[in-house]
């Protein structure tokens, strides 16, 4: 006896289904089901995962696509898709239902079903008098595609219900089909089903009462059991329906927008034309044979795999950005494509890196290419609006991101459902160290006080573990757009996102990849905004027009690289972090490719793979470089025999171990997921044997495998690093040659990067850049470059004042006299916004009118309304509080987040409130291993996962930053000081190497009480 389950909800019916789609299809297959219809509620969010799982594991079961609905009236239906047209119809119904309601909900009435022409309808009667009316209506409009689905969950009154349904069937001639309305793949998920029900209705399980399922029958049941529950005819009907359903998700074909190709031309012809134009721009001195060959190879493959429109679509978008003066840069695997370079999608010159086109597209991969394009973060919205305007909201939508249960949320929700006190749950959540891989979270929770052996404790641990990874809701992807030639809702349902004017499809990027649907990532990058602003300022102040290509076309500038080698890289893209700054003096990048390596090497992958040290030794010529073969040499020569990039690993696997392109790509995926799945182990034998067969010795093979393992998911693709290196070099070049414009642009582009405005301003001042304060008569909203005595200075803008609104500033600028305000009273009279006046007063912006900001604010706060005629008669007394330097510094930090004149440490030192200490600027004067005392504001704390519990604390004084290293034992022994200090004194030892100095912390002393009132926020990094 064969059976097809036609009503089944996975956990993509959020907080209703208790099993993953993969688990459902696996279990149904094991039970010998003919088919399984995945019918999540008003959604097809789970179907691709089920489809992919069946495909990868070659399961025999057939997947049917459908969806379950509850109408406003309470009636319940399932729509199934027998063919492509029905699928489009289903997507349309879901989209309409979702769009009418707010995010996460839907609205459907009976008349919505009237227009159904292709879907099959399974009706689940309520068991009430209403059923007659519904039956009449359904038979009238959908007689030939209608069934009455009966589920047996062994509930009370079922006999009566079945009799009622049989009467309906007889009266209205609707055939009956058996179903189980499955919510879990196995009955062992029953407790979890109860837990998610309780979570959904916001009660504990104890209080949930009859909302809980009375038994576990809503699970996939064995065929023998089903035959006992249902008459054969009902079961056979399920097969009959399943047989009608021939729609397969593989039939979904991606149709790109057609309007991009001019009339009379084919897509490939047009693409070739554009590439030819691009060659003239990118290779003005002509092409080498190798590059010509590669371009032809790429174009042939693009045509063969029918990706022409994809490239044309992206080209169109970047051309819009270019014409609008919006900086952009393609990155990721696309940088391996010379065609992308010619189309101006990417900026990485392929002559400068070792491209691997197969990393981007290959026949074996059978996946669409993935192109990420970064745009200026302040102008990305213009690009998004362009896409919406050009293609319409019907044809363009963002991909979804599935928000799943992580440990924190799982503990919270499961704990509440079991009635555990909220305070205790918060206690667990705050104390669990998720990065501690030696102690699993279960053990940690027990150590924190959960009674692990009690029944409730065991239930808690089990349920939390089960719910981890369960989807909670759909959110919008950061910038992944799907654009199609026809209405998107015929391809995949579209629903409202939380953000206004945004719609998302119900599939995430993994689903899109699985189905071969193309997505364009429209991402935002702060540094692009900063660079563009810098170019504008340079044009304005120096009458010089620059773009990224102009700078990269210049030869490698020694002075710029020298600056990098001294780790003078605050504000420079990708190489400004503490870790990067420690590496720069050791690696000493001197050319573009060095920078590519620099960016890629300071990452957990190379660190854990033990590649960093060998590379540095070889670079310093302290270790000989050798290669086991010429083939390997050609791959690793650029990195001195040490694999640093993902592409190198793939190439070695292909060249040295005989992997095909597709196998190598599977290896890449396994590397990316190995921490989660351990799949990498499967490749060990093939790698080792392959290399040994080709004459490589075991030691080399083992070493390479271990390096790959260490790489794990943290390896950087070379192309990615290469794209970033372009921006790193450009930003460094701008810092060196146009520092005033550079810092101004960075400040105008915040928030971005590693450093706060305060740190950027301090770095600017340390580079002898003059920074002028916010001034009511001289500033505008943005920071700008001004000339004072022929010297270029940065004039801080009003945007730096906390709480200031752009509109209020516009109004101030509109009423500001040409020669400026002459008194506080005049400002007060002319400027409408009271809050703005208060904010400016506190920030010291009225320094040109009054040297007492307390009094300025006092005057501003007077709300008594004066007519101008009597104003002199009614002036009230001036405020008697006169701010000291310390007060001014506190006010600066409170209002601006920085202080130009007074660093807190300088003031405290001048007041004699600090013990003797060494300033950052003098750190290098100390010998290696000498004892030292340093102190400063705690502005950064970093505890990298690779650092075995070590914390790097950055202390800022008035001359710069000191990097201190705090071992975990030190931190533990002085925990309070370590955790809570805002001003920290460290007694320790200097560690100096290659011009980089750190302080190994010994004694920690909290000096925070000396600085009450200053809000110093330390950034914490992992």
């Amino acid at each position, binding site marked *: 006896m064969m059976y097809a389950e036609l009503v089944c909800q996975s956990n993509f019916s959020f907080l209703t289904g208790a099993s993953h789609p993969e688990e459902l299809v696996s279990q149904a297959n094991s039970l010998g089901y003919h088919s399984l219809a995945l019918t999540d509620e008003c959604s097809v969010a789970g179907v691709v995962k089920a489809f992919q799982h069946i495909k990868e594991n070659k399961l025999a079961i057939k997947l049917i696509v459908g969806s379950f609905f509850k109408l406003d009236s309470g009636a319940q239906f399932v729509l199934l898709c027998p063919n492509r047209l029905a699928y489009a119809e289903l997507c349309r119904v879901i989209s309409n239902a979702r769009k009418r309601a707010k995010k996460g909900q839907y609205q459907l009435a009976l008349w919505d079903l009237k227009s159904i022409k292709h879907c099959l309808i399974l009706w689940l009667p309520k068991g009430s008098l209403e059923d007659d009316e519904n039956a009449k209506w359904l038979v009238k409009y959908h007689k030939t595609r209608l069934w009455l689905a009966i589920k047996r*969950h*062994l*509930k*009370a*009154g*079922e*006999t*009566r219900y079945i009799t009622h349904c049989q009467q309906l069937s007889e009266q209205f001639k609707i055939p009956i089909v058996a179903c189980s309305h499955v919510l879990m793949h196995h009955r062992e998920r*029953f*407790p979890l089903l*109860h837990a998610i029900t309780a979570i959904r209705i916001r009660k504990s*399980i*104890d209080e949930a*009462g*009859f909302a*809980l399922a*009375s*038994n*576990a*029958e809503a699970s996939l049941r064995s065929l023998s059991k089903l035959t006992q529950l249902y008459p054969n005819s009902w079961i056979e009907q399920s097969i009959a329906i399943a047989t009608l359903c021939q729609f397969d998700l593989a039939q979904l074909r991606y149709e790109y927008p057609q309007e991009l190709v001019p009339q009379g031309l084919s897509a490939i012809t047009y693409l070739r034309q554009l590439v030819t134009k691009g060659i003239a721009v990118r290779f003005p001195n002509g092409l080498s044979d190798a590059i010509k060959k590669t371009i032809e190879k790429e174009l042939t493959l693009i045509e063969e795999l029918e990706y022409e429109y994809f490239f044309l679509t992206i080209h169109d978008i970047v051309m819009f950005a270019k014409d609008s003066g919006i900086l952009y840069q393609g990155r990721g695997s696309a940088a391996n494509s010379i065609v992308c370079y010619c189309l101006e999608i990417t900026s990485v010159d392929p002559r400068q890196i070792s491209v691997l086109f197969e990393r981007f597209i290959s026949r074996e991969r059978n996946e669409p290419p993935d192109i990420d394009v970064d745009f200026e973060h302040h102008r990305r919205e213009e690009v998004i609006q362009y896409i919406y305007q050009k293609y319409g909201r019907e044809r363009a939508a963002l991909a979804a991101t599935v928000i799943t249960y992580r440990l924190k949320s799982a503990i919270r929700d499961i704990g509440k459902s*079991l009635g555990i*006190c*909220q*305070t*205790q749950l*918060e*206690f667990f959540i*705050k*104390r669990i160290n998720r990065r501690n891989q030696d102690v699993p979270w279960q053990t940690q929770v027990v150590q924190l006080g959960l009674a692990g052996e009690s*029944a*409730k404790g065991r*239930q808690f641990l089990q349920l939390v573990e089960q719910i981890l990874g369960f989807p909670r809701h759909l959110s919008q992807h950061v910038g992944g757009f799907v654009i199609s030639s026809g209405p998107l809702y015929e391809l995949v349902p579209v629903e409202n996102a939380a953000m206004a004017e945004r719609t998302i499809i119900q599939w995430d990027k993994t689903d899109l990849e699985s189905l071969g649907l193309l997505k364009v990532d429209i991402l935002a990058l702060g540094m692009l905004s900063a660079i563009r602003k810098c170019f504008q300022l340079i044009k304005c102040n120096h009458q010089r027009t620059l773009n990224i290509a102009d700078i990269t076309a210049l030869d490698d500038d020694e002075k710029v690289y020298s600056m990098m080698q001294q780790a003078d890289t605050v504000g420079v893209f990708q190489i400004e972090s503490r870790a990067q700054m420690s590496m720069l003096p050791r690696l000493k990048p001197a050319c573009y490719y060095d920078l590519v390596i620099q960016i890629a090497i300071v990452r957990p992958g190379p660190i854990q793979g033990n590649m960093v040290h060998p590379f540095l030794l070889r670079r310093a010529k302290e270790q000989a470089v050798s290669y086991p073969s010429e083939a390997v040499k050609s791959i690793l020569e650029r990195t001195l025999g040490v694999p640093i990039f993902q592409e190198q690993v793939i190439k070695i696997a292909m060249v040295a171990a005989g992997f095909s392109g597709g196998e190598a790509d599977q290896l890449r995926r396994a590397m990316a997921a190995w921490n989660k799945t351990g799949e990498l182990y499967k490749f060990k034998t093939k790698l080792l044997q392959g290399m040994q067969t080709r004459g490589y010795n075991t030691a080399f093979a083992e070493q390479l495998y271990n390096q790959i393992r260490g790489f794990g998911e943290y390896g950087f693709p070379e192309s990615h690093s290469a794209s970033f290196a372009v921006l790193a070099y450009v930003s460094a070049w701008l810092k060196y040659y146009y520092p005033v414009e550079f810092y101004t642009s960075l400040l105008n582009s915040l928030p971005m990067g590693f450093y706060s405005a305060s740190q950027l301003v301090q770095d600017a001042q340390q580079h002898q850049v003059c920074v002028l304060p916010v001034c009511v008569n001289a500033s505008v909203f943005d920071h700008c470059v001004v000339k004072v005595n022929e010297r270029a200075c940065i004039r801080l803008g009003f945007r730096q004042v906390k709480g200031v609104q752009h509109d209020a500033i516009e109004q101030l600028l509109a009423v500001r006299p040409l020669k400026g305000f002459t008194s506080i009273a005049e400002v007060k009279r002319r400027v409408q916004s009271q809050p703005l006046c*208060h904010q400016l*007063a*506190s920030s010291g912006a009225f320094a040109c009118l009054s040297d007492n900001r*307390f009094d300025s*604010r*006092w005057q501003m*706060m*007077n*709300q*008594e309304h004066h007519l101008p005629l009597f104003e002199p008669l009614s002036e*009230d*007394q001036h*405020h*008697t*509080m*006169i*701010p000291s330097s310390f*007060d001014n510094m506190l*006010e600066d930090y*409170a209002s601006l987040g920085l202080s130009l004149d007074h660093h807190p440490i300088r003031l405290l030192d001048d007041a004699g409130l600090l013990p003797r200490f060494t300033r950052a600027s003098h750190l290098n004067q100390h010998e290696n291993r000498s004892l030292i005392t340093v102190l400063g504001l705690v502005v950064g704390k970093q505890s990298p996962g690779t650092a075995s519990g070590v914390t790097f604390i950055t202390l800022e004084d008035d001359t710069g930053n000191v990097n201190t290293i705090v071992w975990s034992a030190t931190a533990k022994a002085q*925990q*309070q000081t370590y*955790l*809570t200090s805002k001003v920290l004194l460290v007694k320790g030892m200097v560690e100096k190497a290659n011009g980089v100095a750190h302080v190994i912390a010994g004694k920690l002393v909290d000096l925070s009480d000396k600085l009450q*009132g200053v809000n110093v926020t330390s950034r914490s990094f992992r």
Partner: protein
Amino acid sequence: MMWLYLHFPCLQLDSIAEDAPTEAIVIVEQTHNTIVQLNDKAKQLGVRLGMGMATAASLVNNLQVLPYDSELSRQRLTKIAHHLYIVSADIALMDEQGLVLRIDTMLKLYNDVGCYWQQIERDLTSLNLTVYFATGYTPYAAQVLAQQQVNVISDNRAELKEHLNRQRVTSLGLSEKQKAALQRIGVLQVGQLVSLSLADLAKRFDITLVNYIGRLTGQLVHSLTFFIPHENFTAQCELAHEIDQVTFLNQPVAHLLGKLAHFLITRNQVCSELYFIFTLRDQSEIKLNVISAEPLSKAQEWQNLVDIKLATLTLSSPVIVIKLFVTNTQAAVSQNQDFLKMKRGNVNALISMMIAKLGQERVCMPIPTADHRPENANRLVCISDLSMRKLQFEKGESLRPSILLPTPLQLRQPMKILQGPERVEAGWWDDRVIIRDYFIAHNQQGQCYWLFRDQRKRWFEHGLFC
């Protein structure tokens, strides 16, 4: 005027800390997860007030964390006020942690502030609570000093002013926004603030700040609602003749009940519990409490219940004095005159009589519980725990027998199944697991039974249908 403020920062903690003096305990306010109370052990280990729970938990390994219960704090504060009311007249509750007592009116009874404070201190010691204190010429002034743990008892205006002026503006009872705004004009200390004229402040700040400062400095009147202990009813009847038979107690009891009724009705109040104390000739006492299921005020209604209770009394000696007192009264709510609802009132009277006869703890009522398990479908709740108006019953859809056997019996007779199975699987969460298939069946006599088959395929009778 002069005031004493008592600040109790650890009202909730003080009640539990005694049991675990060696453990670090904190009370956490749940909205922001910040520490609002902590014991000395926690302080020693670096935890501070206002600290986030995450930081506190990182500092102390075995930190005991409890959620803040504002209602509990308020109740304790009321009890303290009640306690102090014996020695001091004008007491007002200010926020959840403090009491302010008016001193100047009490100086007629106590010679000076010192003596007054001695009495208060003595009374407070018996309560064993953490308390900080201060005097002031306004309630707010005293409050600020006490909250800052100044612990000053003085009637010297200059001295108190000096103390107050030294305090930081952040210690005042202003909003965070107001405090920040004052800092922005350089006003960091109370002395700086009070030196500014109210008129100037009024031009710049909202009225709440102006009022606060005015009340702090005494420029504006600060009217308080003083604590009034709950009015109790007490009446006593000294008998002209000793009564040695219970039946003769009815008349004097009726007289007392009449007074009670008058007391309640004139105040539009009702009560649910009476306490009698019968003093016997041999100076021993018999205590009797009478409970009604619903609040009453009429003498006759109470008489019916008291009579039942009196019937249980045995007098070892004649009664010479009868005292009646009531401690808990509440406002009378007008009874529903709906004819259909009158039946409910009869039930309450019946329940009252049962309580009177049997005692409150022996009168229980079954209420339905929303649970699939038949054994859990009802539970008995003691009448004293039940508030009749608050019950809401969730109705299940399953058909259930009229009679459920307390213990299922093994099937004893042949049955024919009419309906089923209804599978019930529940109880994994409270360790009362059942997995049963229920059926409705009838025997040869036509009686309908509710049967079940368990996992071991054994059959049981569990109920009968009417």
